[in-house]
């Protein structure tokens, strides 16, 4: 319950920050949002729409009230409700991030476990080298390398685009393989590294030696005894890494022309459509906070000593 309270406080801070950015930035936000070619009328219209003429707390109160009723405001450019715009674009983004999440965890955790089990060998060094590289190559550079190799040279996979799930699982998956790989690499690097470190920590503990001494197979020791005890840092970094995934998804959607929330955001930047950006930030931050709440809850399963 206390954890839940903290979550609500964090969300309130996020809402306040996102809202007050409009006021903290120097200059007249309405004039900047309107762009260079705007007339005084445009600026006045945006001013009125954002409520910039009203006192700060009146406006903030109204905004939060609307927010609690599921209203994220309306887009300056299209005049459509932000919630509807996000709703239209959410499927590809959910598909991309979920696909990446599943693939990344399925690859990264075994990689980390193997590296820890074979610490100091070339397998270990290869995993660590991959991990440093994964941190260093930006997602869109990797994305273009993948497209160049698998789509243009080898012609195995489509270059760009997205197919909804209802068009068939195979087509859907074919269009997601490269984006998920590009997006997942930094995430895999992060999780593999922490998995390895956490496993090495646990493997030097007495109970692991006991398990080995009583003749359990090394596989059983690794998976049943060590991995479960090493899990808390691993799920923690999976939760924190969601932020990387979200930032990367925006870029990945741009490279692969996936019509998701990332594209919506990038278009909104070009049009300086702040209500959309505001809505997207709130949505993603909310997801981040909820995922990390779930992560905290999962500690109780992995380590029964932890109670909230």
């Amino acid at each position, binding site marked *: 319950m206390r954890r839940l309270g903290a979550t609500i406080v964090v969300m309130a801070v996020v809402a306040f920050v996102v809202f007050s950015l409009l006021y903290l930035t120097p200059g007249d936000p309405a004039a900047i949002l309107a762009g260079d070619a705007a007339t005084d009328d445009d600026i006045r219209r945006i001013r009125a729409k954002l409520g910039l003429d009203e006192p700060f707390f009146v406006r903030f109160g109204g905004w939060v009230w609307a927010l609690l009723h599921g209203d994220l405001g309306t887009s300056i450019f299209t005049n459509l409700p932000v919630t509807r715009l996000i709703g239209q674009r959410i499927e590809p983004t959910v598909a991309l991030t979920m696909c990446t999440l599943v693939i990344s965890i399925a690859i990264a955790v075994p990689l980390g476990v193997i590296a820890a089990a074979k610490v100091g060998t070339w397998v270990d060094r290869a995993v660590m080298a991959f991990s440093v590289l994964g941190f260093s190559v*930006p997602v869109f550079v990797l994305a273009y390398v993948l497209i160049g190799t698998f789509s243009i040279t080898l012609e195995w996979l489509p270059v760009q685009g997205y197919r909804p799930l209802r068009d068939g699982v195979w087509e859907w998956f074919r269009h997601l393989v490269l984006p998920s790989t590009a997006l997942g690499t930094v995430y895999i690097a992060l999780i593999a590294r922490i998995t390895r*470190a956490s496993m090495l920590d646990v493997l030097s503990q007495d109970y692991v030696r006991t398990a080995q001494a009583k003749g359990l197979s090394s596989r059983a020791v690794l998976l049943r005894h060590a991995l479960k005890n090493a899990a808390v840092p691993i799920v923690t970094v999976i939760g924190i890494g969601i932020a990387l995934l979200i930032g990367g998804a925006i870029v990945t959607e741009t490279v692969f022309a996936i019509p998701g929330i990332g594209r919506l955001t*990038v278009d909104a930047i070009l049009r300086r459509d702040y209500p959309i950006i505001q809505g997207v930030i709130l949505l993603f931050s909310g997801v981040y906070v909820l995922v990390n709440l779930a992560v905290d809850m999962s500690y109780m399963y992995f380590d029964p000593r932890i109670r909230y």
Partner: protein
Amino acid sequence: MAMTAAAALPKSGSPVWRRFRESLRRHPTAIVGGVVLLLMILIAIFAPWLGSIDPQAVAPIRRLKPPSAEFWFGSDMLGRDVYSRVLYGARVSLAVGIAVAVLSTLLGLAIGLVTGFVRWLDAIVMRVMDGLMSIPPVLLAIALIALTRASVENVIAAITLAEVPRVVRLVRSLVLTLREQPYVEAAVAAGTTLPRILVRHILPNTMAPLLVQATYVCASAMITEAILSFIGAGTPPNIPSWGNIMAEARSLFQIAGYLILFPGIFLSLTVLAVNLLGDGMRDALDPRLARRM
């Protein structure tokens, strides 16, 4: 965990520095990283004298020429020399990376030191930091850039704001352990003033982990700058940066892949160099961690 490294630092000739030098010898990758980074810094400084021409010089007649003896990295859709643009681009990436690392470390240090000692402030500041940390850094930077005009300074400010909470977290956790140390308690008991305790007793012991953290901040800031420029919310187009060279090539990558390849290689190499340097320093300063990470 950073305590062991923090517990004993400076004074050259002390065992710490000898260990530092030994570890560097044992981590050749850190040296490679340092050399590559130095090379990039030299490239950034001497960009005008390395056989480059005006990176903004437009020449429609030689548009989209592939790499050749005349144009080492080819030319872009306006006929500008990509080699020159990539060299000048190093300035933006390195300036952003280093500026963000320095600024966010200083800011984070100041906030973290004070909140670690002043209890009533701690709760408030940490909730605000938790909130800031819940906003994915790229998105926070996007929001700030959308509200200001695109410029390198604004990019630096936006990324700094996104990175500060992580530094505050680190400094605060260091301070919370340090303040329980007997010598700090002794200083408190002797009636030393708070600013003096912070500067004399706490600050020196946060330096080693902060230095390591700063290199990671630098690496991540360079990637964030490239991402922002790539999606059109970063460095303005009239200043060549690795991110916006690639951004301009977005629709051309099927016919002119080299436009993405060269800035991409430079960016990845630089970030890799910074990361290797950071890993090496961390191992050198904290031998307990060296075996694990």
